[in-house]
């Protein structure tokens, strides 16, 4: 088991720097406190952050506090996980998904 990694909450102010300008892919977890499935997928995302450390970065956007970024990427449903590669959305995953399904997606991003 990898050491737990803390996932940063990002906002409109640092989204560009942390996500769009990142050299490695970044998975952004769009969530909100009232969303049950968002909280269900959170521990899975935490584990993936540890397992893919150094290969994929992870960040979270609270759509309640930052509706602007959510609107920019057409988010109408949470949880939505978008993996950004070279500053652009590469894959878009809506709803709770198991670790196995998410890993498949992340391995595709890296291949």
């Amino acid at each position: 088991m990898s050491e737990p990694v803390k996932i940063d909450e990002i906002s409109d102010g640092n989204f560009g720097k942390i996500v769009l300008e990142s050299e490695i892919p970044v998975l952004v977890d769009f969530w909100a406190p009232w969303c049950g499935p968002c909280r269900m997928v959170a521990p899975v995302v935490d584990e993936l952050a540890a397992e893919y450390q150094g290969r994929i970065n992870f960040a979270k956007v609270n759509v309640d506090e930052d509706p602007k970024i959510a609107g920019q990427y057409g988010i109408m449903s949470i949880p939505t996980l978008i993996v950004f590669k070279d500053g652009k959305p590469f894959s878009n995953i809506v709803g709770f998904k198991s670790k196995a399904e998410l890993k498949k997606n992340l391995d595709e991003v890296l291949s």
Partner: protein
Amino acid sequence: MNNRDNAYDIVIVGGGPAGLAAAIYASRDRFRTLLLERGLIGGQIVNADQVDNYPGFPDGISGEEATGLMHRQATKYGLETVNADVTGIELNGEAKLVRTGSGDYTAGAVIIAGGTERQKLGVPGEEQYTGKGVSFCAICDAAFFGGKTVAVIGGGNAAITEAMHLTKFAARVIIIHRRDQLRATRVDQEKAFAEPRLEFRWDTVVTEIKGGDFVQGLRLRNVKTGAESDLPVEGVFISVGMRPYTDYLKDIVPRDEKGAILVNENMETQVPGIFAAGDIRHNSGLQMITAAGDGATAAMSAGKSLRK
């Protein structure tokens, strides 16, 4: 494959009230017990801010708090918990092999308590527009539809609860139900009929979800007259029921026509050493208390099977 670290007496699949109650009973009877949960401990009941019908809480309790206490109780007696998704269960002689996305475990007995997932409509456009106007969680997504026109498909308690929640955000909420009366509890029906922003389309089913980049409308059919029509909406909330989360099990245990696992009153399936509890089993009461009851019964049966 005789790794002692991965060998347990009892493996429980699913960490909702059924699995947690089973975990308490199994651990207290000194069985080496493992709980496998792929999401949040507590299962679907964590979405309930206030549970008023679980015995012992006259002022109600949140699903998250109640299941948190259950988990703490089981852990106190030695339960081990791993965050993993079970991808299959196989028979390995007398033992059972539980396969997960992060490794395999062997068990003397397995209790399947993995609950249910949302039923889909199965119409064109549903997959394509999931996340683009099609939602299975009104609590999660209502905020994205402020001032818009949305439809709720369904006629039971969940559909009415979701529709009422949506009226706080959307301009118009249209309930589309294939029958001419609701299945929801009377008190909640009355509130729904009294809500001005809620409209009803009876005897109607959705045959297609249409749009451009996002949902723009629904194709409807009246089941009594056969008449078809179009309804412009910007959101569709699907609330047509739950289905047992059993596809991955394939044919290892017999299930009913809805996919729910067949059990007797001792929560035994037709396969010795495999038990089922909670919403996933045939004729479940679908309540937190019935799930917990099932879990305890299943654990006691599993314990008996291991000590005979």
